[in-house]
């Protein structure tokens, strides 16, 4: 993975010093809160219900054991012993003191991490495929250009006061695990007939109040022109994006209101001018330098199957179940991708204690070439585990309540922090995730139901990604009481779709039964090996509506 050079180190440490100065000027009164707020946001510091919240960037969801251990240390020293992994592959701490944050950031810098641009109206963390470099069928490791985009967008002087936040995602695989069509810019790495690598660029996806699937703006941008193209999109947005209403200021609104054709014309016109200067063509030597950090680990030559593994599966049914649910085939013979569920039955989705983080760091260091990934579904991944080591890894995970065999199943819920933590929320989301998890606790039943992604947001900002849940739940506030609205048929992958609302919202008392009704409707109607989303796409919303509101 990427290692900082002196440029990177210097920029981060200067930024920490800059922020320390800004905090001092705020505390002394020299800076008003109104002037300080955009500065603290650009350093990832929010004010939430109970305390400040710090969002640490985990570029394209990749970290080393040393970096994960530092998160555990931060949780202990500056927070309350835990962190929360987010739907953008970052980590959040819910209780840091403002006056200690500069020290915290200084410690983060020692392991090449930061909280730069994790909030504010600027370009945010570039997210990517959690199976990068491990899964078969990848055109190119998407983290290479993710790192290039990260650098280009960091402290970009032109794009720091955008109309609104800006999120970029990259995938290098036909199966899109990065939800690129739900991003302001989504990039698909592809190859043309000549075998050249280039980029398909989608613009204007997003959730929030007005969800949109991104529109394809460019079919194939050659490698050398990627940054020029992105700069063109950003400049068009910065100059022409709406600034009169913050709910209408994302680029998705601009694409919708301007129209696809005109948007493409504006981007192409600006692209032609920027590209003419050739100033943004990254030197091949730099691409090579960065690519080298993402070279394949030195895999052993191993047989495709493992007797050790097979024996362990026969002896331990729970282990066998976990392998079936959470372990994914690796491109290299003898290896596997391990998914670590942070959704124990009844637990808080996406949270990990310092002890759990240390345990995962140890496993990564010993068994996974020192690499961990964070997924946008609030889980973790150990990307390169030998089949022979799976049982050992499982035992260690199990000992730390990290081996729930529910990947992609109904209890693998995404939930935003909601009204338990968040200033923007209208309803609590975590307790609902817990109740659903407990209602469907029986893993055999979960298997039978199969892949079913529930996503819960506590307000219309949709940080829980409810619009793209197979079942989406939106918490709303009606006269001070929490209600829950269900939507069905959303999807975040290459067949992206926005869910449709079923109708009247449900109360806290009736929502879990309603979810059960939706599930039963599916199991009653499914044909063959249809997953929930397949059945929904075949039968539509009506059968579910009828059952939900039958009375």
């Amino acid at each position, binding site marked *: 993975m990427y290692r900082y050079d002196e*440029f990177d180190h210097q920029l981060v440490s200067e930024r920490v010093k800059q922020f320390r100065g800004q905090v001092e000027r705020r505390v002394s009164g020299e800076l008003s809160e109104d002037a300080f707020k955009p500065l603290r946001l650009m350093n990832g510091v929010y004010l939430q219900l109970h305390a400040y919240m710090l969002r640490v960037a985990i570029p394209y969801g990749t970290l080393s054991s040393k970096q994960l251990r530092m998160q555990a240390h931060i949780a202990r020293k500056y927070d309350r012993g835990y962190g929360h992994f987010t739907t953008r592959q970052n980590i959040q701490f819910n209780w840091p003191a403002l006056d200690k944050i500069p020290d915290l950031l200084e410690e983060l810098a020692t392991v090449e991490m930061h909280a730069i641009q994790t909030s504010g109206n600027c370009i945010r963390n570039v997210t990517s495929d959690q199976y990068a470099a491990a899964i078969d069928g990848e055109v190119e490791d998407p983290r290479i250009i993710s790192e290039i985009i990260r650098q280009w967008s960091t402290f970009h002087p032109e794009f720091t006061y955008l109309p609104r936040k800006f999120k970029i995602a990259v995938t290098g695989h036909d199966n899109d695990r990065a939800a690129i069509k739900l991003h302001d810019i989504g990039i698909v790495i592809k190859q043309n007939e000549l075998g050249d690598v280039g980029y398909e660029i989608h613009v204007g996806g997003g959730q929030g109040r007005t969800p949109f699937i991104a529109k394809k703006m460019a079919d194939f941008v050659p490698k050398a022109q990627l940054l020029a193209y992105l700069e063109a999109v950003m400049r068009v947005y910065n100059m022409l994006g709406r600034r009169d209403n913050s709910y209408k200021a994302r680029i998705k609104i601009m694409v919708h209101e301007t129209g696809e054709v005109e948007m493409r014309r504006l981007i192409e016109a600006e692209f032609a001018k920027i590209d003419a200067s050739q100033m943004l063509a990254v030197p091949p030597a730099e691409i090579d330098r960065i690519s080298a950090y993402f070279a394949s680990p030195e895999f052993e030559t191993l047989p495709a199957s493992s007797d050790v593994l097979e024996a362990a599966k026969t002896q331990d049914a729970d282990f066998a179940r976990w392998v079936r649910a959470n372990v994914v085939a690796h491109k290299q013979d003898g290896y596997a991708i391990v998914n670590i569920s942070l959704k124990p039955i009844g637990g808080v989705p996406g949270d990990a204690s310092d002890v759990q983080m240390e345990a995962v760091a140890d496993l990564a260091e010993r068994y996974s070439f020192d690499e961990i990934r964070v997924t946008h579904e609030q889980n973790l991944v150990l990307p390169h585990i030998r089949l022979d080591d799976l049982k050992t890894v499982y035992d260690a995970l199990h000992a730390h309540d990290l081996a729930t065999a529910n990947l992609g199943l109904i209890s693998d819920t995404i939930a935003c922090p909601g009204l338990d933590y968040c200033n923007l929320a209208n309803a609590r989301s975590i307790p609902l995730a817990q109740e659903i998890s407990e209602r469907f606790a029986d893993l055999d039943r979960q298997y039978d139901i199969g892949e079913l992604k529930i996503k819960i947001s506590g307000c219309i900002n949709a940080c829980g990604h409810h619009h793209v849940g197979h079942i989406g739940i939106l918490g709303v506030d009606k006269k001070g009481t929490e209600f829950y609205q269900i939507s069905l048929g959303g999807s975040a992958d290459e067949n992206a779709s926005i869910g449709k609302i079923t109708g009247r919202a449900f109360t806290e008392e009736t929502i879990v039964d309603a979810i059960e009704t939706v599930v039963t409707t599916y199991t009653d109607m499914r044909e063959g090996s249809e997953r929930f989303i397949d059945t929904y796409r075949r039968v539509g919303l009506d059968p579910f509506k009828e059952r939900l509101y039958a009375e």
Partner: protein
Amino acid sequence: MPNKYQLMREGALCQDEWIYSDEATALSEAPTIISLSRLKAEADDLRARNAKLGVQLLADGNGKTQLGEDVQELEPYLDMLSLVSIAFPTYRNGRGFSAARVLREQFNFDGEIRASGEVLHDQWAMMRRCGITAFELAPTVRLETFTEAMSELSDAYQPAADDQRGALWQRHK
């Protein structure tokens, strides 16, 4: 237009020789900044005027979308302009950063580009990188504060309108 600011130009506080004029008052020989609408209306006459001319580019207009004025509209007049004053109505409105870069890098404008309006301490360095060379600052701002702010981030990852090439390129010089 009353000027309640001090002018910072190329790193030094100085007297502003420019004045802002309204839509109607006849222009003197003093270096004068006028609106874009006035410039368009009186361009021919202004060409004959033998004195320095500047224009103010607004960032918010009367329309619902508040797009303001497009820097592209200045292109036909650049040969008669020595100064462009870019308005930043609130610090949140960052359109002017792009306007400055387009002026410098696409139109090769080499007159003064100044930032006017709500300009925060922590934006100065970025504005400088985008080609803004003068700042209308609150009277309370101290020179040392400004100088310090300019040097807080010494390097850059990406090129802009200044002479920094950017680390992605600089690494292989």
